[in-house]
């Protein structure tokens, strides 16, 4: 349509712009951005894949897939996948379960809307280290939480919340929540309230409206939030070290990759672990998208416009 308009106006000599913009030249502004992605993202990725297929050191003669065989053959390395999954999956699910009703209810303003949104978003600025340091003190044996629980006689001895699985779990839940909430809020605000009103008029109860109208319309948002959250939590690194037990139950896969690269200087092995990470994530994202398509097919932002 744009082109047609230009044709009609572009006959006069006073309008040179359309001619220059027609065809491939109009796409030139894309080139620098594309080059950056190709050189600094696609190429390294391919380089990493290639690197992982050329084992070095003791594995050099053990065949193309020796790095992968070494990773999956070593129980300690293999365990890092499980260690990561048992953090990433529950954190993602729990954040979704908490954020979903909030985002749905906040899609139209409540009194104090700005303050509420602000409070929920602020953890974004805390940063992993401040969160970790604060958690070590807040949840520590002499921290406020244990003091409070002791004072209320809920517990007899201080509970260990940090330097274990619980610490990393809590840290991820807090740091990951704002993004999940914002994605869901974005999608929830895009749903036309008239759809629900129509369902109501037609006699649907709130449970029926939730199940048959709201949730299907929110499915793309839930999928996007789940995918983003999983990608972020699956690559957890600093909090697994600072508030976790990096030698034991929170030795996550990112840590395994880092140790291969920077403690053993085995870049091929590290690249292989990175590729395993990427593969697991792509599988998860594909599963989420497949589930989304089962739940709802239609425009990405449902119902309005």
């Amino acid at each position: 349509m744009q082109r047609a308009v230009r044709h009609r106006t572009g006959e006069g000599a006073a309008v040179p712009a359309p001619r220059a913009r027609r065809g491939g030249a109009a796409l030139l502004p894309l080139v620098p951005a594309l080059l950056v992605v190709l050189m600094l993202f696609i190429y390294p990725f391919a380089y990493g894949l290639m690197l992982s297929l050329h084992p070095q050191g003791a594995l050099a003669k053990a065949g193309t897939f020796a790095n992968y065989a070494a990773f999956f053959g070593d129980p300690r390395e293999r365990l890092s996948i499980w260690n990561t999954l048992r953090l990433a999956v529950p954190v993602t699910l729990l954040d979704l379960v908490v954020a979903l009703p909030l985002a749905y209810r906040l899609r139209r303003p409540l009194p104090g809307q700005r303050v509420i949104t602000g409070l929920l978003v602020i953890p974004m600025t805390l940063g992993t280290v401040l969160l970790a340091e604060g958690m070590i003190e807040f949840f520590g044996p002499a921290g406020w939480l244990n003091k409070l629980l002791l004072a209320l006689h809920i517990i007899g001895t201080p509970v260990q919340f940090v330097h274990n699985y619980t610490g990393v779990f809590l840290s991820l839940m807090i740091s990951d929540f704002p993004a999940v909430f914002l994605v869901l809020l974005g999608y929830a605000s895009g749903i036309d309230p008239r759809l629900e009103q129509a369902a109501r008029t037609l006699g649907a109860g709130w449970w029926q409206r939730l199940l048959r109208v709201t949730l299907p319309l929110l499915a793309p948002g839930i999928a996007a939030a789940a995918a983003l959250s999983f990608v972020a939590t699956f690559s957890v690194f600093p909090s697994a070290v600072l508030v976790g037990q990096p030698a034991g139950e929170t030795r996550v896969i990112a840590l395994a990759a880092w140790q291969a690269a920077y403690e053993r200087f085995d870049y091929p092995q590290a690249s292989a672990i990175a590729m395993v990470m990427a593969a697991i994530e792509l599988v998860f994202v594909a599963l989420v998208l497949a589930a989304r398509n089962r739940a709802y097919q239609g425009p990405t932002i449902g119902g309005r416009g």
Partner: protein
Amino acid sequence: MNRSVARPPRAHAGGGPTWWVYALVGAFAVLVAGIFLSAFLNSIASTWFGGWLPDAYTTKWYRFAIAEFDLGYVLAITIVVGLTVTIVSLALGVPAAYVLARRAFPGRPLLLLLLILPMLVPPITYGIPLAAMLYTARLGGSLAGVIIVNIVPAMPFVVLIMTPFFEQIDPNLERAARTLGASPWRVFRRVLLPIALPGMLAAGLLILVRAIALFELTFLVSGAKSQTLVVALYYAAFAAGIRPSQAIDAMAVVYMVTGLALLLAALRFINPVNMVIRVRQ
């Protein structure tokens, strides 16, 4: 329209009581405030043994952090990296976003996916080979290397935010300017830029926040002289025991205040929802 008629359906559609929203948000806020205050009070405590509050207060840990962790230098590096990454990402991403918003061409969805892909893949997966590449090119450990790796996730963010922003601008404005004889460059400078400036400012501030917070890539590439605040903080916290925890907390508080100031500035320009995706109103 009569207000009393308009109101009820809206209240119904929203559904039910709201106390639980305040309760949930309150609980979350108390938890986060407790964590932050624990760190903050520790950073201004001369000693804190077992009591509910520190025994006495001091500012010495901030002075200690400035001297011991070279906080001034680290902050300067962080600002240089953040600003350079922001400017370069905007310069690369804005033209791309404009074309993606205005042109329909074969392969557009694929190209958009390609340009956004670096945001969907965790940094550590491509960061390790990228770091290996940069070390081979003798850029590892340098300031330039840190800037380069930070552009990779930042530029897609510009494309993601600015593409819908340009879509919302009425194309008739540009057509009118062109009909009146303005060159494409003049249209861009005099028509598009003024309209897009708030969006670019918001995108820029958000990239700044993210570049300052981005840990993994900087961690993989930076050397002793090119650490940003997050990475310096991580090393300080990782080597806990060598340095007093109060000094680490002081540094972390400086970090949070920087990030919070930028976030609040960004919130003035942009609805927080649009930070992640766009909402059609």
